[in-house]
């Protein structure tokens, strides 16, 4: 006997095979996406992003700290994700697990490899003090595709962020200086189901896909890849996925511009 989850999974699978989705979407269509910025008053930048019923909030805080020894004249980027028990009955309290760690590291690499942040402008005193840009992703409600929602939230929060002043060892948060992002890396996850590709998988779809690839594109270049889940991809499939992700990430970019 199948339980309710299995029945739903089977239905989702059948739908996709017929070229549609359980929620009526086309295979290559996003759910309703909403991006609101300035939603966390104490953050220097923030964004709440919804992809259908998935809900993510991202806050950017600036702080001052020691630079890393190998980059004494550069600011520091930190990305952290909390996938706590609020977002899903399957999550537990405690330090970030494998899933939250992957989430934050993929987004971190997208930002870092694309050189989206002007880290070299964030040095206060070489070898002594630099700005730390701390991006915290907080998952509120999990209905799938947290990766794309979180990455979009991160870049949206960074785009609206203002950097505080700094004087005599004190961060002056009432001052708000410009902080310019150079590029907008956008993550787009493409999943394979049989011989079909879908984007923006819902939670139930994530359970049935054969594999996923999260592709991060800037305006011009591919800057990060992460195959996720258990399945495998042939090389030609991957090339197709990269191009599809490019097209769809342009759609996402328009939302936040």
């Amino acid at each position: 006997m199948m339980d309710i989850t299995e029945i739903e999974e089977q239905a989702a699978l059948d739908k996709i095979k017929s070229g549609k989705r359980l929620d009526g979407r086309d295979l290559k269509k996003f759910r309703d996406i909403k991006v609101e910025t300035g939603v966390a008053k104490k953050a220097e930048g923030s964004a709440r992003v919804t992809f259908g019923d998935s809900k993510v909030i991202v806050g950017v805080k600036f702080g001052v700290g020691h630079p890393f020894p190998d980059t004494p004249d550069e600011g520091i980027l930190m990305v952290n994700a909390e996938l706590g028990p609020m977002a899903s009955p399957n999550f537990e309290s405690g330090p970030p697990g494998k899933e939250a760690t992957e989430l934050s590291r993929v987004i971190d690499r997208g930002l870092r490899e694309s050189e989206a942040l002007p880290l070299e402008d964030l040095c206060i005193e070489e070898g002594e003090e630099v700005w730390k840009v701390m991006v915290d992703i907080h998952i509120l409600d999990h209905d799938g595709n947290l990766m794309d929602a979180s990455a979009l939230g991160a870049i949206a929060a960074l785009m609206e962020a203002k950097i505080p002043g700094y004087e005599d060892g004190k961060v002056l948060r009432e001052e708000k200086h410009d902080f310019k992002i150079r590029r907008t890396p956008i993550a787009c996850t493409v999943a394979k189901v049989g011989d079909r590709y879908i984007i923006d998988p819902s939670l139930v779809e994530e359970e049935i896909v054969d594999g996923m690839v999260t592709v991060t594109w800037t305006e011009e270049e591919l800057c990060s890849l992460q195959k996720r889940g258990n399945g495998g991809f042939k090389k030609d499939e991957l090339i197709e996925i990269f191009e599809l992700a490019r097209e769809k990430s342009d759609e996402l970019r328009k939302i936040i511009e």
Partner: protein
Amino acid sequence: MSKDKKLLKDGKRIDGRGIGDLREMEAEAGIFKRADGSGYFRMGGTEAVAAVFGPRELHPKHRQKPKRGILQCRYNLTPFSVEDRKRPGPSRRGKEIGKVSEGALSSTVFLEEFPTATIDVYMEVISADAGTRCVALNAASIALADAGVPMRGLISACAAGKIEDTPVLDLKGEEDKDGQVDLPIAMNVDTDEITLLQMDGMTDTEEMDEMLELAIKGCKKVAEKQREALMKTFEDSR
């Protein structure tokens, strides 16, 4: 405590409120899909969301109570909710607030109907400008009702306090920082029972009476806002 700061002038506070006024409120129920119930509450610059899961089986089993369910609270500040980024994870303060929140909410829920079960309440503060535990509890209470958990009444919370020797309602950040007393309470406005009570500062019984009076009035106004939000969801879902 800086002496020069004037928190009160001609009976008006720094944001123009009178001594018995609450900050502007906003409330919403049913904001999440995965949780069994959810709620949002804002009071001025302080905002929180809450999600309720359960009643569901408590693990590990040896913690189950044979005759009644338990209610567990997790209270957390998001890292970006405060001036200097807060390290993720439970602080000592957060643990304590989790515990007093359990005390504030448990008595209003008919836990005897759910032996061996747990009801889990998760509260996240999105933005902190004083009164965070009250705002989080207000969201949690909405979430419990939204989850359809049988309750003796809504729990509504707000703080009174003392600034410049004057009892006032609902301190905001600057008032809290330079204030003399902070007195957060939560109550079941239907039974007039105060289920959360904490106080820091130096005061006496008489002044306490005045501050409690203010806070009780505040809770009643909070309750109206909570009911409004629940009613709206109820109507939307019809």
